[in-house]
């Protein structure tokens, strides 16, 4: 049975809009992966096959690039909020390891896992580049600054 198509016309058009920017189609790989990931919260293998078709590449070429970056999930979608907790040195000096531990217990998942209700995917991040606000975390597009464990609890409570 052929796999069901995953890329919608809207996604394909968004990907094609990047073609004129680059002298090669392969350069559209990362933009295409981001386009799919923003909409589906993951990039399933079937999407990799379809991106490769659009870009005139072998699926293995797209998969090769995708797996290099830890950013794109493949097996199931990330939670409705993907919560990155920085663990690099400036944050670590101000309690980042303890914060990540605390969140891990509060959510009942290890870093890299999603809560059973699909609300949150907890992730550890290397330096988020917001060291003046250590310890910090990135909740999708929102930077949460100088987070105490109590503020982290409140943040979780306020999540839809």
């Amino acid at each position, binding site marked *: 049975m052929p796999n069901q198509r995953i890329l919608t016309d809207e996604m394909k058009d968004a990907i094609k809009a990047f073609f004129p920017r680059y002298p090669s189609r392969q350069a559209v790989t990362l933009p295409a992966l981001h386009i799919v990931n923003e909409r589906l919260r993951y990039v399933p293998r079937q999407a990799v096959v379809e991106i490769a078709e659009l870009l005139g590449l072998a699926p293995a070429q797209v998969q090769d690039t995708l797996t*290099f970056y*830890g950013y794109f999930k493949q097996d199931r979608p990330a939670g409705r909020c993907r919560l990155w907790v920085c663990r690099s*040195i400036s944050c670590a000096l101000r309690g980042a390891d303890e914060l990540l531990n605390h969140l891990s217990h509060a959510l009942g998942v290890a870093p890299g896992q999603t809560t059973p209700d699909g609300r949150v995917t907890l992730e550890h*991040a*290397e330096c988020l580049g917001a060291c003046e606000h250590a310890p910090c975390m*990135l909740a999708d597009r929102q930077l949460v600054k100088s987070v105490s464990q109590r503020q982290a609890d409140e943040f979780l409570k306020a999540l839809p």
Partner: protein
Amino acid sequence: MADFEPVLLAQVGKAESYTLRAYEQSGGYQSWKKVLKEKTPKEVTEIVKASGLRGRGGAGFPTGLKWTFLPQNHPGPIYFCLNADESEPGTFNNRVLMEEDPHQVIEGLMISCYATNATAAYYYMRCEYPLAWERMQAAVDECYAAGHLGKNICGSPYSLDIFLHKGAGAYICGEETGLIESLEGKRAWPRIKPPFPAVEGAFRKPTVVNNVETVACVKQILDRGVDWFKSIGVPPDPANPRDAGSYGPKLYCLSGHINQPGCYEAPLGLTVTELIDRFGGGVWKNRQAKAAIPGGISMGLLTADEFHCPLDFNGPGKFGCLGLGTAAVVVMDEQTSMVDFLLNSCRFFSHESCGQCTPCREGTSWATKMMLRIKTGRGRLADLNLLAEIGDTIGIMPGTTICGLADGAAWPIKNCIKKFRPELEAYIKKTNPNGWGETKPVPAMDLVGIH
């Protein structure tokens, strides 16, 4: 020093500083228009070369000189890549510039593209900067609408496009050839040099890769002149014929155990003590400092006795550090465990090693495993020698890897063992009272739980 006025950060904190309107009100894009009308690309390159500007991304290579490595009279296209993949732990100055004053960066980028005859600029930004991305995209859109970008800008024959390109969370994309590979849609494996990007870079064409803060400095040099730039900072050390000097203002990132962490602008050559006391409000909780990272974690460690180290391109090297790096100073107080510091550093580099060169891939991951073993009370004194051996043998300098990531991984190990060996030994002896003297190889089964 007392009369130094911030230039790069002058607009930061003002209302709507990120809009074209506010930027033009403060004199923005005047230099760009003047350059287009009055100067040839070669003249602009000569100005930047004469200013002594050195790259702000970490290596400190003279910017104007880098531009002259492009082939002469090339039929094109020549590409310009702006490196906004800032991910060196402790570093956030590019983020501040992009969020608060994106037009300053764009104007510097435009001038730099003009000087290098580039007609397309790829703005490679890490994906963890959503606000910077939003502001930068809005700023680029404003520039197209205002006619600062596009075809035949302001009636001149010059055309330029800027394309934002989003990374996907890999430190190695900050290495210039790793960035180029990533831009081309491949895994970000750094290339063997030569050929250097100036000869064969993105899409096999001549390419310049510069940092965000570097192009912001280019804009300021065109605004204020070479003499102004050279009046700030530190002239070349006469005792060192290879020193190109450390001119201009620098954005210092201060974080860690400090009362007022932040991004501060000061002339190159400021000391660590001055940065901590004048800008950072001292070490937090009335404690004493124990150590500091001088310029991002790759640069190694300064002890508190070495805080008179000037933060210019020459300074940290005199204290055994790798260099100035990104000038990101991370302060650690007296209660910090150097075992924790070194484990954190090793973990970062083993996570970020791209895996291409065996010495780096294996060296960084075994260093992390050994540090975990030490941390969990199973360390032996012999491990410190093994760690030091890794530190001495991975990297461009010992000649075993393609890029400098491994040198950055090695330096914290080398510096920490050299400068804090008694503390590391005391920790090992205390936590492993029966096994610290063991020198036999660790049985393989013992490591199962560490993988």
